[in-house]
C-alpha cells in the first residue's frame, strides 16, 4: 500500500515536472488484468498449465527456477495437482487434474501423479553414477529441482553475450510491477536493436539483452487447443510465474477469509462484553 502511495506521489511529481518518465526507468507496466489480482481472486489453472508449457519449451532454455522442484507442480494448489473424484455417470472414482468447482475429492499424493512424473522425466539432470563416480545425465524425478540450463554463472554469461538470465522463481515478486511487468517486457519489444541489445520501453534503461523470446505466434502448440498468439503466451507465462512465486496464494486467501470472519465475530462479541462490563461505570 505504501508503495502504491509512493508511486502515486511519483506520478504526481513527474506530471508537475513535465516529462512522462525518467530516461533510466522503464515505462510503467501495461494495464493488464489477471484473475489473481483481486483480494479473493484465484489462479486460472488452465493458464498456469499453459504458462508452464511456455516456460518449459521457451524460457527454460536460458532461465533457471532453482527454488522449484517438479513435485511442486503436483502439490495442492499446483497446476497439475491430481484429485480422486467420483464420476457421477459411472459412480466410479477417477483421478483428474484439478478439482472442479463445487466437487469434493481426495488429493492424490504427488508421488503417484503420472503427469508430474512424465514432466520430470522429460528433463535430463546431472547426477553422479554410483558405480563409476562419473558425472552422468539421467531423467529427472519429481523430487528434483527444476533443471538449471547452465552449469554455473560463467557458462550462463558466456552463452548470453555477457548477460546473466535471472532466476525466475520469484521474478514477479522481485520486480515492482509483478506479473504485469513480466507481460509488458515480453510484449514490449519495439523491434529495434542497439548493438547486441534490444529496445524494450518497459525495461529499466530501455535496452535489454534478452532477444524477444516470444518472437512469433504459434511458438508453442498448446495441448488444450488454445491459439498460441504472442499476447496469449505472454499472459499465460506471466500467470505461471506468479503461481511459481506465490504457490500458496489460494490457501492463504482462503484462510484469510476465515480468519477475518472469525476476528469480526470475536470483535463484535468482545465489544458487547466490554459494553456489559462497563455498564453503570461512567468513563
Amino acid at each position, binding site marked *: 500500500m*505504501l508503495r502504491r502511495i*509512493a508511486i502515486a506521489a511519483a506520478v504526481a511529481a513527474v506530471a508537475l515536472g513535465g516529462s512522462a518518465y525518467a530516461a533510466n526507468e522503464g515505462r510503467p507496466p501495461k494495464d493488464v488484468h489477471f484473475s489473481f489480482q483481486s483480494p479473493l481472486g484465484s489462479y486460472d489453472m488452465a493458464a498456469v498449465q499453459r504458462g508452464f508449457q511456455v516456460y518449459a519449451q521457451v524460457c527454460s532454455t536460458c532461465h533457471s527456477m532453482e527454488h522449484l522442484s517438479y513435485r511442486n507442480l503436483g502439490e495442492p494448489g499446483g497446476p497439475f495437482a491430481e484429485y480422486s473424484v467420483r464420476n457421477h455417470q459411472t459412480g466410479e472414482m477417477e483421478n483428474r487434474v484439478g478439482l472442479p468447482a463445487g466437487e469434493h475429492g481426495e488429493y492424490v499424493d504427488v508421488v503417484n501423479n503420472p503427469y508430474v512424473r512424465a514432466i520430470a522425466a522429460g528433463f535430463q539432470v546431472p547426477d553422479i553414477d554410483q558405480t563409476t563416480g562419473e558425472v552422468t545425465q539421467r531423467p529427472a524425478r519429481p523430487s528434483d529441482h527444476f533443471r538449471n540450463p547452465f552449469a554455473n554463472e560463467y557458462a550462463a554469461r558466456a552463452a548470453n553475450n555477457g548477460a546473466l538470465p535471472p532466476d525466475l522463481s520469484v521474478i514477479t515478486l522481485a520486480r515492482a510491477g509483478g506479473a504485469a511487468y513480466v507481460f509488458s517486457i515480453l510484449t514490449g519489444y519495439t523491434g529495434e536493436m542497439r548493438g547486441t541489445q534490444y529496445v524494450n520501453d518497459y525495461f529499466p534503461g530501455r535496452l535489454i539483452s534478452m532477444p524477444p523470446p516470444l518472437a512469433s505466434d504459434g511458438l508453442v502448440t498448446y495441448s488444450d487447443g488454445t491459439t498460441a498468439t504472442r499476447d496469449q503466451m505472454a499472459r499465460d507465462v506471466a500467470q505461471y510465474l506468479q503461481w511459481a512465486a506465490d504457490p500458496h496464494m489460494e490457501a492463504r486467501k482462503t484462510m484469510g477469509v476465515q480468519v477475518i470472519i472469525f476476528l469480526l465475530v470475536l470483535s463484535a462479541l468482545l465489544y458487547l462484553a466490554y459494553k456489559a462490563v462497563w455498564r453503570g461505570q461512567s468513563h
Partner: protein
Amino acid sequence: MSGSSTYEPKSGFTRWLDKRLPIIRLTHDSFVAFPTPRNINYWWTFGAMLSLCLGVQIVTGIVLAMHYQPNIHDAFASVQRIQRDVPFGWLIQNLHAVGASMFFLAVYVHMFRGIYYGSYKAPREVLWILGCLIYVLMVATAFLGYTLPWGQMSFWGATVITNILGAIPFVGESIQVWIRGGGAIDQPTLNRFFSLHYLLPFVIAGVVVLHVWALHEAGQNNPTGVEPKTKDDTVPFTPYATMKDLFATSLFLILFATFVFFMPQALGHSDNFIPANPVQTPSEIVPEWYLLPFYAILRAFDFNIGPIDSKTAGVFAMFASIGVLFILPWLDTSRVRSMRYRPAARWWFMIFVAVALALGWCGGQNPSTVLAQPGSFRATLNWIANGQTSQQRIQVASPAAFQAASDAAEAQLRAQGATMTSVVRESGTTALALGVSRGSPETRVITAATSDDLEAEITAAKAQIGGSSPFVAIKREAPFQFTVTRFAQLLTAYYFFFFIVLLPLLGLREKPNRVPDTIAKSVLGQTQGAS
C-alpha cells in the same frame, strides 16, 4: 500500587504457595486489582497490542530459526524453502515479517500518545526512558532481522548502516570492522546478525518487565493527566481495562490479518526478492517504512557544518533525533501534564505528528526529486552578427602559464578593436583566441522548465545563429529548486525545534486551560470536546 494487596488465597494449595512464592498475589495485584484510571481511552490500548506483538515475533521467530540457515549461500534459498515447503511456513514467515511492521505501527501510536498526554512527566520519567530503550532495541532487532533473508536490500541496507557507524569520529572505522566481522558485509556479518537477532528480543522482554514494573509503581497516566486521588477515580484493571484492551486488540488483529493474508509483500521492497549481490548496487537503497523518518534526517545533511562533514553531521542528527526522546521529561517545562488543557501545545504537537509522517515520506523518495521550482532555467546568449573575425594562436611552455597567456591574447584582441573575445582551448598548452570586431551585437534570452530542455533550445539557437558569428557567449542561470532534501531539512529543523525550543519555552509561556480537580469530576462533568 504496591503495599496494599487485596489478594486472598482461597484454597489450601494457594495459601501454601502464597507463603512460599507469592506469584499468584503478584499477578493478582498487577493485572487484576491494579487500580486503573476510569477515563483512559482507546489510545491506552496499544500497550496490550505491543505485548502481543512481542509474543508473536518471539514465537514465530523461534519456529523460523528452526528452518532458517545463516549462510550467505543458503539463506535466501532457506527462506524460499520456508515459504514453499515448510508446512504453514508461508503463514509463519508472513506473520513474522508483517508482525515487525505492526509492532512499529503500534509503538509509534503508543509513543505519540505518551507525548500528547505528558506520560513522561514526573513520576514517570524512568517508565518513559525504559520505553525509549525498548524502542531503540526494537530498531536494532528489526534492522538485524531485515538482513537475514540476504536479498539485495538486506545486503545493501546492512552496508549503508554499518557505513554510518564508520562516520563516528576516531573509533568509527574500528567499530565498523568489529560489527561486520571484517572489511565488508559477508558470512561473519550474517552469522553474528542472526545470533544478535535471536538474542535482542529476549533483552526487549527483560526491559518490558522493567517497563511494566515502573508502570505499576507510578500508576497509569490518563487523558486528564490528573493523578487518581480517591477510589472514585479508578476501576480495577480486570475486567475493565482488560476487556477494553481485548476489544481494541481484536480490531488491531483484523488489520494485522489483512496484511498477512491479502498483501503480505505490500510493506516490503521488491528488491529483497533478488538474492544479495555484492557487485551490483540497487538503484535505490531504502530501509523499511518504519525507519524512513530517521533515514530522511540522515540524508537531510547534504552540507558540511564547519569542520564537521555532512556524513558525520547526518549520523549525529539521526542518533540525536532518537536520543532527544530520552531527555524529553526534562525538556518539557509545563506544569500541566495533558495537552488536552494546553491550547497552544496541542497544535504544535499536531504539526509535529504531520512533520514525522512527512519525514517518513521524504525518506522513501529520491532526495534530488524537485518538488517545486518557482522560476525557470534561463540562458542569456550574446553574440555579434556579421562581424569580422580575427584570431591569434596561443602557445605556452607549461599549463601553469596558460591563464596569463590567454588573458594577454584576449587583451591584445580587444586592443585591436574586438568587442567580444573567446579562447578555444585545444590542449594543455595550446589554444586559439578569437575576437570579433564591428558587426551588430545581439542578445537572446531562453527560458525552459528543465535543464535538459534548456540545453536542447540552446543547441537549436546556436544552429540558427550558425555561421553569422564565430562564437556565442552563454550565461546560464539555474532557478531555485525545492527538492526532497530541502523539504527534509525544513522538517528536520522543526523536529528538533519542537523538542529543544518549543517544549521548554511553551511550558513557561503558555496559559493552560483549567484542569479538572479529579478524574471523577472530569468524567461526570460536562462532556469534553477533545479526546
